[in-house]
């Protein structure tokens, strides 16, 4: 990625020097490459070099039938694979006009929200680890482990679930699943006290995060930031509310926002979102309707010619699948709007003037997954 042109166009002053943070670096989880121009320890210019894990999912989609793209969808964002998987199925269902049974939609909501909790837990704890506290990270993993076990009981897998199918889901959930999920919700609500005492209240954590990496509202909108990062900047936007998909319109939940736009705000928004997700899961399980879990769809679907855009909220922001169909069994074009792509780009705007240590904190608080950026 690093060419002579990249080096040349930065005026190498005697005082400034360049630091390659990544692609192999403990805190740029995944392979992300920051090319920093530093003055002492202060970042003057930051450039993100991406594409180290580019696998060409969009090209792959043009070479396989719609069903065969299932495994790819989850592999873009390995932390919220369920949400991406469900989103892809919904996009194709929209294209074909398939009506999904209500029970399946509820199950999709439950699993997606569980996945979102897991992803947020990992994101928050990874952020804390970037700041230097290792132990809370593992406490977070302890909670996340329960979700993974829970999802494993129905999907049989821990990260790349492949659970949703066109017209429904693969496996029904049963009472034991609901019971364990309820137990998890109770446990998780108690754990918030621990997180507040151990992390949120900690003076060092407050000093490290308050006022650091402020993304103002205008910048956030200009750079197309979405998800918790945007809501940390005070914009009340969540696809689940603005364009309810699955059956989110049935549930009563709030969109937590913070006005400050700094690392702390993003952290708090994520924690609050975990709480809201737990509420959604609880409501969905209480009102879980009976019925089939899969609509009657053919084994291999053939959508009509046309295009459609389906937007949904992953743990990192608004994802969009734009599918162009030419009436065959193979998509003509499939484009994924990756939220991390835009969320990462905003870093080049806000990092200058911060320390290298802050860069790690900001990167952690924006919470991107690199495979999703690279696709």
């Amino acid at each position: 990625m690093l060419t002579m042109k990249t080096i040349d166009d930065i005026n190498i002053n005697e005082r400034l020097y360049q630091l390659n943070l990544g692609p192999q670096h403990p805190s740029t989880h995944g392979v992300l490459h920051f090319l920093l121009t530093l003055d002492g320890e202060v970042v003057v210019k930051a450039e993100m070099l991406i594409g180290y894990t580019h696998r060409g999912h969009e090209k792959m989609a043009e070479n396989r039938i719609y069903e065969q793209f299932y495994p790819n969808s989850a592999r873009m964002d390995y932390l919220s694979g369920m949400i991406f998987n469900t989103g892809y199925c919904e996009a194709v269902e929209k294209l074909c006009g398939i009506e999904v049974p209500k029970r399946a939609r509820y199950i999709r909501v439950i699993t997606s929200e569980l996945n979102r909790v897991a992803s947020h837990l990992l994101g928050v704890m990874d952020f804390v680890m970037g700041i230097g506290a290792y132990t809370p990270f593992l406490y977070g993993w302890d909670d996340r482990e329960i979700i993974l076990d829970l999802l494993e009981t129905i999907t049989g897998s821990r990260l790349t679930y492949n659970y949703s199918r066109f017209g429904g889901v693969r496996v029904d959930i049963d009472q034991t699943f609901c019971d364990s999920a309820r137990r998890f919700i109770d446990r998780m609500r108690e754990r918030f006290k621990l997180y507040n005492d151990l992390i949120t209240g900690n003076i060092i954590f407050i000093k490290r995060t308050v006022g650091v990496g402020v993304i103002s509202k205008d910048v956030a909108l200009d750079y197309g930031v979405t998800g918790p990062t945007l809501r940390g900047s005070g914009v009340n936007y969540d696809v689940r509310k603005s364009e309810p998909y699955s059956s989110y319109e049935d549930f009563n939940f709030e969109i937590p926002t913070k006005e400050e736009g700094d690392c702390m705000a993003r952290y708090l928004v994520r924690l609050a979102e975990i709480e809201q997700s737990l509420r959604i899961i609880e409501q969905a399980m209480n009102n879980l309707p009976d019925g089939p879990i899969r609509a009657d769809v053919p084994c291999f679907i053939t959508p009509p010619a046309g295009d459609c855009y389906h937007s949904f909220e992953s743990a990192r922001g608004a994802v969009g699948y734009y599918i162009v169909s030419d009436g065959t069994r193979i998509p003509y074009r499939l484009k994924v709007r990756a939220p991390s792509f835009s969320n990462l780009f905003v870093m080049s705007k806000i990092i200058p003037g911060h320390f290298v240590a802050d860069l790690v904190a900001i990167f952690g608080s924006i919470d991107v997954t690199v495979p999703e950026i690279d696709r």
Partner: protein
Amino acid sequence: MNMTQLPIIKDIYGFLGPDLLVGVVGLLLVLIFVPLNSAFLVWVERKVAGHIQLRPGPMEVGPHGILQSLIDAVKLMCKEMITPDLADKPLFWMAPCIVVIPAIVCFVVIPFSPVMQIRELNVGILLIFAFSSISGLSIMMGGWASNNKYSLIGAVRAVAQSIAYEIPLLLSTMSVIIMSNSFKMSQIVSDQSTVWNFILQPVAAIIFIICSTAETNRAPFDLVEAESELVSGFHTEYTGMRDALFFMAEYTAMFIASSMAVVLFFGGWHGPFFSGIVWFVLKAYFLVFVTVWIRWTFPRLRFDQLMNFAWKVLIPISLLNLLVTAIVIKVL
């Protein structure tokens, strides 16, 4: 004039004279104790970290994995020692050798018990401070000679940190020295036979512990090797046994800092039931445990906050504490 009256000549006479056995045995004990102690402390660190994080830690080698660090040391010895092409080779090679010197020398003056002290020096505390500053120099050497930007940033941080934190460290020590009226470590300990200095000087004790944590580059002040920012700081480029030497120095410095705290504030060898050495080692290891415990609880400070903390919080408070101590001593 007669040279033989000089203290250093006396030392040399003393060392080569009748009590050769004590000197040699003491030296050997130190040389064995330093690596074993650091191996043990690595194990303690991993065990404590494990249990804090709800996992068992090393379990495989020996009962509860107690031999794990020895096996690790063997592994590190077998590893290739890589020298970067553009490194400043002599300095790169020398830095890990120099970093263990203070670790060994400082043991000479630590009074483990009334009888177990290798050398009784009038300036014992000064010696420890003087030699600890050498380790900062070798960190700088290692970091600079690696010719790696991460190492250099780590080394520069180390220097700034050690300058900033040495001042409150010395100031808090001074308030104890004013009370005991001596630089002699055994004198300070025997002054605490009734009341520990921790009771009389709680502020100084806390400042001392904070500063010694910072001086030994332990979390939350481990900016020198902050792994999420600087990969591994000044020893990024070091492999094999050289890296192990840095580790050994770090853990030994931890032990020395704890021993200093025990001597200055926690009554040294004083304690009921057991003999002096048991109490001393127990107290020292407890303080080591506290530093490990702190490390696995807190996030890391940012560099400017670290500096602010030293200059704006610790130095004023320790100066105030010194002033109050001096006035109280004068008045009483």
